[in-house]
């Protein structure tokens, strides 16, 4: 199942919910604002659960589940690098010291982004296993363009 009416409806609900949510932020000091905030949040959450309800109907994708834990570890390491950089601002007053802390922080973040996360996502990558064409038997359906002559 590709794009469909339910997707469109839930996107509409998402936008309406988000708009109401933002109106709640804008007028948060008033009781009406707080009510709008709750109403908008319900709309947004409702749309996401609506999407989740139709997700299984949309067919198999060319992806296998990766390592969920490693994905979170990768993100956490990336964030840790940033926190290290922030700590450097407070720990030392010298420009050189802060440069060192920032470089360390960047290096740590890059380990998370360029090493841990790709490894987590590629661990069970489809291309590592059976070929896509064997999996789907759809090689013949692959198409490309040829200009009319």
């Amino acid at each position, binding site marked *: 199942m590709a794009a469909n009416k339910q997707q469109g409806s*839930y996107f509409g609900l998402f936008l309406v919910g*988000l708009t109401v949510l933002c109106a709640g932020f804008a007028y948060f000091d008033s009781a009406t604002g707080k009510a709008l905030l709750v109403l908008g949040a319900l709309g947004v959450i409702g749309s996401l659960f609506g999407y989740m309800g139709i997700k299984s109907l949309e067919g198999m994708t060319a992806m296998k589940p990766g390592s969920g834990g490693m994905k979170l570890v990768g993100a956490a390491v990336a964030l840790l690098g940033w926190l290290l950089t922030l700590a450097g*601002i407070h720990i030392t007053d010298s420009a050189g010291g*802060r440069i060192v802390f920032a470089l360390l922080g960047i290096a740590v973040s890059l380990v998370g982004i360029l090493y841990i996360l790709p490894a987590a996502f*590629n661990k069970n990558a489809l291309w590592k296993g059976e070929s896509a064409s064997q999996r789907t038997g759809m090689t013949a359906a692959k198409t*490309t363009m040829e200009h009319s002559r």
Partner: protein
Amino acid sequence: MKKILQRSCFSLCLFAFALGLSVAAHAQTAAATPAAAPSAVATSPADAELKDAAGKAPATADLAKGDPGGSLTGTINDVPAADSKAGVTLPDVANQVGQNKIAVNFVWTLVCGFLVMFMQAGFAMVESGLCRVKNANHTYMMNFFVYTCGLFAYWILGFAIQMGGAAGNSNLGGLQPLASEHTLSLFGKTWGLFGQSGYFLAGHTYDVGVMVIFLFEMVFMDTALTIVTGACAERWKFATFAVTSVIMGAITYPLFGNWAWGAGWLSQLGTNAGLGKGYCDFAGSGVVHAVGGLTALAVCLIVGPRIGKFNRDGSANPIIGHDISAVLIGCFILAFGWFGFNPGSTLGASANGNLRIGTIAVATMLAGCTGTLGAIIYMWALKGKPDASMSGNGLLAGLVAITAPSGFVSATNACIIGLIAGVLVCISCAFVENVLKVDDPVGAISVHGTNGLWGVLSVGLFADGTSNYGGSWNGVTGSVTGLFYGDASQLAAQLIGISTLIGFVFTLSFVINLVLEYFMGHRVSIETEVGGLDIPEMGQLGYPEFVFRPEPAMPSGD
């Protein structure tokens, strides 16, 4: 524009002349009349001179004959008088001069914003041209719809977060309605976190200056959003793309935008931590391009590579785009739009050092030029062919890299920055594909992410300390000066900005899209992907009258 400039110059001259007369007259009469009555203003020699000028101005009958040379149009008679009986007075002239300055800056900023808006067309052509024909409609539609999604999200929330505390820009009249920044007190200093005024552009933000800055900042935000659509093309579910674009336009981009441009904590690194002039990103190598490029990397990791991109041994297969002419024309459109992007970021052409717009435009041109040269020579010398798509990416890489330093560097340094960017984009594309095994059909991660970060870094290295926009930047007196010109602390501020982009912005984007993967799924089904996204996702082909044939030997890991 020309007319406004002419009038502005005329008014400035008139004002200076009148002011000089007034000061001279005051000096002569001060001893005799130390406490002049207020009514003396109306009868001062300056006002007499103004009346004289009004008398000498062309009469209506003269103007009725036509003014082919343009020497009669635009005189003192065009200056509105508060009291028509008294005629034009010195305060009238002063007010007109002030309004002319703001008008020039409004027009400049708006026109530059229109140029940046047109870049959407360039992105659409580049991205679609680099994709296969079976996904052309889908890719074009993503580029089309991201404009709407981003604009709407920015109107309801994003602008308030980014610019809600950005009051104080004298180029645009002060922007005083935007004076509400949520702050955090930490280690004895106050740090800005996000803005709080400007939701829906309603209430006191229904203001002429606010509308100008909204338009200009909005088109920048949309540029960041459209970067992601290229990197994830040919397998991204349209519904998920739409939702994540709205969230990016409402939260991810504006948050970092506030920290860098909206009185947020990065811009306060100079005043609060003594680091140069704070984090400096003149036109958005970091705010726009690195945010877009890093978000593209986050989504690309989640959405996975296209079927057939990688073989079982991990080697990559080239998947050739369908229209190289669209790619190169799109690159030219982008280069044209960049003249709005960088020079427009002065937010004005009048006062406060804004005459540097010419330098900024030339730096932009040159960096694009050397970026192209770097990429072409690299590919030609190492791979044997002056690859067209990488040449286009080289141009864009040079432009992306010069975006942050364009306001602070010389023409020579712009060339160096662009040349490095042109080579860097080739190396980065190979790294992303062959080492990370991330499939980026258009090279957006390398063009915008890698070179966005390089641009931010280059400010800390190459800023030459000659750009003096009103005497200070981010509240710190002096000009932005990089390591090579004697200020290591500016490099520290830039590195903190880079760390924030990599560590915070990437992580935020990654987590948001991981949540959307759980609820919605990012990827289309195998059947949709193999057959092409145009029919299943969009309902029609991009090129319905072209004939399709089975692909003879598409590598798919067999």
